């Protein structure tokens, strides 16, 4: 029972990160039908920029909270600029190309970003500054920390903010219109280029926040940290129904829970044959299962051709 509660907490925390990153995938996919493979790398860049800026500022004598806040702000701005340039340079010229063309470009961009990051920050694991208080709590035998609470609350706030933006603002209305039918939206006076760019910029800002949270949670950052996270977040987006914002949030939390429970119990279930180091395969099994049995995802509409 204690393990169950503990795994649920861990799953919820991990899931809230997946959800934040999944929103970036789903925003872009919903609007232009592109899997932005490089999205995980944006998360990684966000974490590494925050790490460097915070490190430099604390070295210059600023208190940690101020350095950390500035680090996060710089990371968000950098990622927004990165997302904008990715769209502008790599994807926009290919908007009318056959579907596989932008996907291959996205894979290429992912490799480029990873290797650029490796050149800038090196191959080694880096210590991420402890941005959040370390206080720990204990309820019913399960432990959780202040970092975890802050993470879940931040993700929830970001998601509410995004939902407000998409469903209550002019830009959000333009985004939804473009997602439904970009041609008609264009005829109605929506500036498609601006809407697509906005989707990339917003997704990247969420990714930067997710990157900082992952770094602060594990207290470690690395040039490859975004890749697996990106894949899993994509899985979460597919699980919830890609293109569907609520679906991405639910899918993220659900995937986090599945992983945590799976890793916690796989040893018992298989009589010790498979251990928790198989944690990473759950996401892929979920992905394959969803695509085979319910390609539209749990909350997605039937999209027919797309899947």
């Amino acid at each position, binding site marked *: 029972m204690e393990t169950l509660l503990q795994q649920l907490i861990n799953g919820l925390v991990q899931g809230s990160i997946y959800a934040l990153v999944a929103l970036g995938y789903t925003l872009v996919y919903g609007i232009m039908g*592109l*899997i932005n493979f490089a999205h995980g790398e944006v998360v990684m860049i966000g974490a590494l920029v925050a790490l460097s800026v915070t490190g430099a500022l604390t070295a210059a004598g600023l208190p940690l909270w101020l350095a950390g806040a500035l680090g996060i702000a710089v990371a968000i701005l950098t990622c927004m600029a990165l997302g904008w340039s990715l769209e502008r340079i*790599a994807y926009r*010229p*290919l908007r*009318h*190309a*056959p*579907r*596989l*063309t*932008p*996907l*291959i*470009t996205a*894979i*290429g*961009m*992912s*490799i*480029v970003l*990873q*290797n*650029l990051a*490796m*050149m800038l920050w090196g191959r080694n694991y880096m210590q991420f500054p402890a941005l959040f208080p370390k206080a720990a709590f204990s309820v019913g035998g399960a432990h959780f920390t202040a970092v975890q609470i802050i993470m879940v609350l931040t993700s929830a706030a970001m998601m509410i903010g995004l939902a407000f933006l998409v469903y209550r603002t002019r830009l959000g209305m333009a985004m939804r219109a473009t997602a439904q039918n970009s041609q008609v939206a264009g005829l109605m006076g929506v500036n498609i280029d601006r809407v697509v760019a906005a989707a990339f910029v917003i997704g990247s800002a969420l990714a930067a926040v997710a990157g900082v949270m992952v770094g602060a949670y594990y207290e470690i950052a690395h040039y490859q940290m975004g890749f697996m996270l990106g*894949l899993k977040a*994509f*899985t979460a987006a*597919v699980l919830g129904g890609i293109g569907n914002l609520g679906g991405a949030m639910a899918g993220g939390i659900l995937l986090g829970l599945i992983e945590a429970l799976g890793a916690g119990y796989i040893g018992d279930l298989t009589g*010790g*044959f*498979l*251990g928790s*180091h*198989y944690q*990473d*395969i759950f*996401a*892929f*099994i979920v*992905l*394959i299962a969803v*695509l*085979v049995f319910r*390609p539209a995802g749990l909350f997605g509409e039937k999209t027919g051709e*797309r*899947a």
Partner: protein
Amino acid sequence: MKTWLSPRSTAGLIMIAGALLALPFLAASGGQAWVRILDFAILYVFLALGLNIVVGFAGLLDLGYIAFYGVGAYVYALLASPHFGLHWPIWAILPIGAFVACLFGMLLGAPTLKLRGDYLAIVTLGFGEIIRIFLNNLDAPVNITNGALGLNLIDPVRLGSLSLAGTSEWGALSLSGPQKYYFLLVTLAIVVVVINLRLQHSRIGRAWQAIREDEVAAKAIGINTRNIKLLAFAMGASFGGIAGGIFAAMQGFISPESFSLTESVMILAMVVLGGMGHIPGVIFGALLLAVLPEVLRYAVVPAQKALFGSVLIDPESLRMLVFGLALVLVMRFRPAGLWPSPERKRELAEVSE
């Protein structure tokens, strides 16, 4: 097909054959390392042609191709190393490796047949990762793959009494290990090229092409799309399995590290850069990307030392950076590849209008 080859292409073939025979000796003058590079280049040609069946002919974007290569390599390593104490001969193992890889290909293909395009890419990627995770972790409780440490002391290829490892002498002719592997690999590569060429214009090849262009239409004219797509996966996987077996024998050591996503992307880059579905283009792409890193290694390090006095960027990371950039730039400016087939070029021209 009365005259199979025109005089012009016969002359071309003779020239290619001459070049292929002379290459290992030319390369050896620069050291055995270059012969090994040549061996790997041909192994990559082999792999790229296998992937070309799936990606180029049938249009199914497979990002987990390296898994089949890995399966083939592990089958060879398990059946011909001290790990289980088995030392089976190559002619027994390669078909088993091809068959097991083929089974895995079907295992991947069967559930993903309904998916297309980008979804298929992600699922195959996930499949490749699952295989790698299993290779990495199947050392407990029963030690099958020896985990991240990998398997070593793998037997070299033996043909009768001739071992391909070490130097052999026949009178004045002396062949080093890598040179002998070179001839084995070239022979196999030629077989694969011929199979590819024959497939391309066969009934199956045309069915693949039809599926690539328009699956619904292909179904409507009576093509059994399910079986034909499975066949593409199975054939591509078998070639990957055979290549993996040779790789294991040549290296004498394998570990899950060799079968990462990076490798899958690299082989995909070879196919895409060369020209999807165009056999000469794919061969060109594979040779280019296999030799390029070595050239970088020899050119970049001295250049940096001369310019900056130290090595700032190691050639390995530069290699991947160049791959990534190449993918992006080729998709932007030459989406049909550097050496596309005439048909593919035409199709893309039509789409962009």
